[in-house]
């Protein structure tokens, strides 16, 4: 295979891997900047690589995506159960505490308060339904996190104001104008 062709294959694989959802042939051809005909040739080539593997390539109705293969499904089920059974960990409880007391809080604020990256902690809490994520009331594009009603019920309270010393703690968590502080 020509080197160029090899790179196209790699790029298709990378895009499919990165996106966790189906992508249309058309959009894929735009991203790779190649024509549809050329794309289809490469898709057929890529299918050969994904035979008898832990990940399968599905090409259906002009849409294409990667998914875990059938034989591994019991293992993935185990993984999902394990994800949900595990201790939420130090990062998880810290992040949850901040979200509980602060209410509608951005990832940036959480990370500023904790002083560490909290991407995976947030993801873990989301998957378990302890927190949810929505657009901020003040800005459509900003995403804010808050504790779910189910989580509050689990804690035996109806709203966050019932948390111990809610008012004081909420004020102490104020980190507005954090931009200015983050330089040397």
């Amino acid at each position, binding site marked *: 295979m020509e080197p160029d062709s090899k790179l196209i294959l790699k790029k298709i694989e990378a895009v499919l891997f*990165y996106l966790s959802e189906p992508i249309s042939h058309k959009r894929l051809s735009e991203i790779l900047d190649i024509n549809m005909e050329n794309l289809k040739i490469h898709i057929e080539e890529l299918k050969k690589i994904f035979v008898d593997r832990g990940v399968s390539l599905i090409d259906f109705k002009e849409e294409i995506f990667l998914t875990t293969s059938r034989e591994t499904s019991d293992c993935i089920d185990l993984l999902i159960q394990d994800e949900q059974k595990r201790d*939420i960990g130090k990062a998880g*409880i810290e992040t949850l505490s901040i979200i509980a007391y602060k209410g509608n809080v951005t990832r940036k604020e959480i990370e500023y308060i904790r*002083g560490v990256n909290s991407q995976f902690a947030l993801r873990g809490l989301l998957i*378990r*339904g*302890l927190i949810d994520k929505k657009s901020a009331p003040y800005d459509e594009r900003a995403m804010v996190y808050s504790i779910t009603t189910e989580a509050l019920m689990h804690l035996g309270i109806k709203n966050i104001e019932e*948390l111990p010393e809610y008012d004081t703690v909420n004020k102490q968590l104020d980190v507005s104008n954090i931009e200015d*502080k983050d330089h040397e």
Partner: protein
Amino acid sequence: MNTDSYTVKTGVFEGPLDTLLSLIEKRKLFINDISLAQVADDYIAYIKSIEDFPIADSAHFILIASTLVLIKSKSLLPNLSLSEEEEKSIDDLEARLVEYQKYKKLSENLYKIFGKSSLYMRMPSKNTKILFVPDDRISIARIYDNIRRIIIEIPKVENIPKTLVQKVVSLEDMIEDLTERISRNFKMSFKDFSGMGKKEKVSVIVSFLAMLELVKQGIIQVKQENNWDDIEIETNTVSIPRY
């Protein structure tokens, strides 16, 4: 200059080693006592030109300035004997500069590749089933304990130690003090002026620095008869110009 080159934003404050290294590199010199003696004046001029010292770093700046003064005075007064400790601080400064230069070069190379051809993890799936599965270890008490601890650890900007600065004698004050005392006594010894033996080492060094500054400006003359002898300071003019 292309946009990918490594540039320092204007107005960004540079540290003492960085400043010193730039001065040496600007003259295309290698790091050694000769080049350090050559750039000592530039470095001191730079310190004097900065109005707002970052509090946390000013002590570092002055300490490095003192070492430079030692190096320079040794080059000006070859008879000058330095204590073992002083010799060591000169060697240390050279070693630190070499070390810093190495990391600075590495960081320039790292910057060239930083974010250029990144690897990416898979995007988290949007269709992940969300089941409410609390962890039984989550309780109000645990949340409260955690938030109390977190609040204590939120960085407070005003925590930067200010005490560091109080210990450091300002160069300007020293020069003024020296000028005044010389005009009063006409002739005095460096030992008397600097309070050697009584004051902290930093203060002695800053005095020396001030003295050299005055020599350079032609206000005073210094004399050292023999190694280890005290240094005599004399004024050239009776009226001391203000500067």
